[in-house]
């Protein structure tokens, strides 16, 4: 029971919801799955704006890629053919997020808006160069990376996430590793690697490190080492060696030193995994 909450409103369209956000600015919160407010109640919130009545739950394959409505739960996503994205890797990752019960609650929009530094989804979405569509009276589609580079929390005070688009990347292979204390855990470090290989050369690289414990970062230095090289033991060794310990930090869960070790191991394993997958494709 959150006694400060006086109203639960259920708009039927995005414009209606935006109008409500404007009216109750500063004391209203959107409810996707609603996990965050049940977890950390906020005293200033008096009005809840539920998104259930707005048709935001959909998964579509469009020419530009996989489009996911913000109201889609992770469970719906995993049960749909959306899981086949990244050759099925996406589905396998979804199966490891939180618990099956929570996956029935967590929405893609909620995860994007809350943007926990330890999110499983953000390194993957960022690593796949996703686009996000925001509605503030009109739709604006921008790269997810620039969304987070800007002051996205300010932006979200007057806009609603409509959908996310995960572009199709031909010839690209991805791998993902996460560390948890037991099978069910939030990630305490995760690494997502995606490479595009053309004629044995690494043409594109998109590598992200999350739960460092800070917000995910792009491993640009590592990417620079990889680009233009053939993928082999030597390249992987060179890539791993430039991974800076300053990218990771400590919390009571893991030390900085151990996180750095994990980052190194995960990066090497992901690149090796991509290498071996590439070998089997040829």
């Amino acid at each position: 029971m959150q006694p400060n909450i006086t109203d639960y409103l259920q708009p039927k369209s995005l414009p209606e919801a935006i109008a409500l956000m404007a009216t109750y600015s500063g004391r209203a919160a959107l409810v996707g799955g609603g996990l965050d407010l049940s977890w950390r109640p906020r005293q200033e919130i008096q009005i809840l704006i539920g998104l259930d009545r707005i048709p935001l739950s959909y998964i579509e394959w469009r020419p530009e890629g996989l489009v996911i409505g913000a109201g889609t739960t992770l469970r719906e996503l995993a049960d749909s053919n959306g899981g086949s994205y990244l050759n099925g890797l996406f589905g396998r990752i979804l199966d490891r997020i939180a618990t099956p019960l929570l996956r029935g609650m967590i929405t893609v929009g909620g995860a994007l808006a809350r943007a926990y530094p330890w999110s499983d989804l953000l390194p993957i979405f960022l690593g796949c160069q996703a686009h996000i569509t925001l509605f503030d009276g009109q739709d604006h589609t921008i790269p997810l990376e620039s969304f987070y580079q800007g002051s996205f929390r300010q932006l979200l005070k007057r806009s609603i996430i409509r959908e996310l688009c995960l572009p199709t990347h031909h010839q690209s292979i991805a791998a993902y590793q996460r560390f948890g204390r037991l099978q069910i855990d939030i990630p305490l470090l995760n690494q997502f690697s995606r490479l595009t290989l053309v004629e044995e050369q690494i043409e594109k690289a998109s590598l992200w490190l999350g739960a460092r414990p800070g917000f995910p970062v792009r491993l640009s230095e590592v990417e620079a080492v990889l680009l233009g090289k053939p993928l082999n033991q030597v390249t992987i060794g060179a890539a791993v060696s430039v991974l800076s310990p300053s990218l990771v930090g400590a919390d009571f869960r893991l030390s900085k030193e151990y996180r750095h070790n994990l980052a190194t191991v995960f990066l090497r394993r992901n690149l090796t995994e991509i290498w071996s997958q590439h070998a089997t494709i040829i």
Partner: protein
Amino acid sequence: MQLSFKLNGSATQWEDVYPGENLLEVLRRHDCWEVKGNNCTNGECGACTILLDGIPVPSCTVFAARVEGRNVDTIRLLGDPDHLHPLQQAFLRHGAVQCGYCIPGMLLSAHALLVRNPHPNRDEIQQSLSGHLCRCTGYLQQIEAIEEMARLPEGAE
């Protein structure tokens, strides 16, 4: 605030629901004692699980207002003490019930799994139970009970 929904198949209307309440609180306030929990209130133990339109979710994380017009099922869906559902009998046969506190939630997850997939394999069974913490049993008993159900011919559940 008023709340109208289907509870275990019957149309239900409650007048005194607060907008800041979660479903677990509202259900227990209305004597649905079969929904256990209210101690982690964070979706992490699974004791308070209900089926929302057939999907198992922790009721402590569902704002009550969200179930307006929808179907909520509790463990009453399955059986009563004199007419146990075969899944409930299988749980008892396999020693899956000790203190019993986690059991209504686990049964609902198991039931939802079997409805979608009558012959789940062991991995799928372990997955489906993984949102439920049980400190008494060791999980193997529930897994074996569900495996027994999974071996039954179609529709027998």
